[in-house]
């Protein structure tokens, strides 16, 4: 009887989640003009500095072990904030480029498709990068390499730029600062 109750509750929760997610997605207006304003520029140089292994080695040499752990923890929190922002930007770009997939211009559709694929790859990498950063928070002295994430982000930015050019040659795109 207890098992039946657990299964009924689980089924009800699953149904609520399925209905909520599917219906909210189907009601979503893909062409929401406020989407572009949700993109937060990211200082790539600052992020690159945070993930630079030489910078890590330098801090390790100059600081005591305790101070290094504290600093490294702060750097990891900052890194996680950057990565989350990168993920949110990728999310917004997916939504923007999905509206561009309906364009009548084949080049715009190709650019949008490429951008969506790269943004999806980035969303995937964000999950791994965040997992790695949170794992490193437990052991701040371990080495971290989020370089591949940075490369993905830059490739995606290039695609966003191309899509922007194709859709509106006079209005270029910016999704990072510096």
């Amino acid at each position: 009887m207890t098992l039946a109750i657990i299964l009924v509750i689980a089924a009800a929760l699953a149904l609520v989640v399925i209905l909520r997610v599917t219906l909210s997605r189907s009601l979503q207006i893909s062409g929401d003009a406020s989407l572009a304003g949700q993109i937060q520029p990211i200082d790539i140089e600052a992020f690159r500095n945070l993930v630079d292994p030489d910078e890590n080695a330098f801090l390790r040499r100059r600081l005591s072990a305790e101070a290094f752990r504290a600093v490294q923890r702060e750097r990891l929190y900052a890194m996680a904030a950057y990565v989350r922002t990168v993920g949110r930007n990728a999310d917004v770009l997916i939504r923007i480029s999905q509206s561009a997939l309906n364009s009548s211009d084949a080049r715009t559709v190709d650019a949008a498709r490429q951008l969506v694929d790269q943004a999806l790859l980035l969303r995937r990498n964000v999950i791994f990068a965040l997992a790695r950063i949170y794992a490193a928070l437990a052991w701040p002295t371990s080495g971290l390499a989020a370089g591949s994430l940075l490369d993905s982000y830059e490739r995606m930015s290039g695609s966003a730029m191309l899509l922007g050019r194709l859709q509106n040659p006079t209005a270029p795109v910016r999704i990072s600062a510096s």
Partner: protein
Amino acid sequence: MLQAHSPLWHYLWLAPHILQVALAVLIWRRGLHKLFPVFLAYSIFEAVEEFTLYGLDVVPWVKDETFWKAFWVGLIGEGLLKFALTGELFRHLVQPWPAVAKIGNQLITCAGVVLVLVAALTAALTVPANPNWLISGAHALQQSMYVVESGLILFIVLFAAHFRLAWNRQTFGIALGLGILSCEHLAGWAIIASGILGDKSELIDFFNMATYHLCVLIWSYYLLVPQKAVDKPILPPPDNNLGVWNRELERFLQR
């Protein structure tokens, strides 16, 4: 009204499957079978299975044992087709996007393995409500099947939501119907398998059949009614700084 062999009972058992046969014919005529071959196979199999079971149930000289043996055979076939259908839906969702197709396939495989283990555990923990193993075993198998099925559909929906994957209309409709069906049937078969309701478990049969009817209507709507043409605005790109981007990319390329 809510009794076995009442007019409503006959209607709810037969009508969704008659509709499903009509749906299968229209799917074939419109060429949708090339896109959804497993869904077509599932629709035909489900209709044949249920007509057979209905016949076995209403014909007085058929033994209970024969009915339940046929039920087992249908259940196993239906289960395999439903898992194949889940795979078909997932393939439609991720196939256009190679960036997430591989990880998606790996994750859904892992989710499937975990769900099979959970289903086996729930089956092992279910106390048989009926002394006849043919009946109690079928109930436990239904329950286990829907644990896996609803879990997989939930996984697909959450995966699509996380990656903002766009559903096409037909895939969305099939997934929505299958999601509602599997969650409701999981709850229903869990109650039947536990025997909580005793003699009143027929009420759950009505609920299951009505839900199935609703799901066939959902599938018919999404597969047969064309989407309204809506002019979706193509957004201008976010505001600008190409010069900065160019400098950044050049610096990146020169490293």
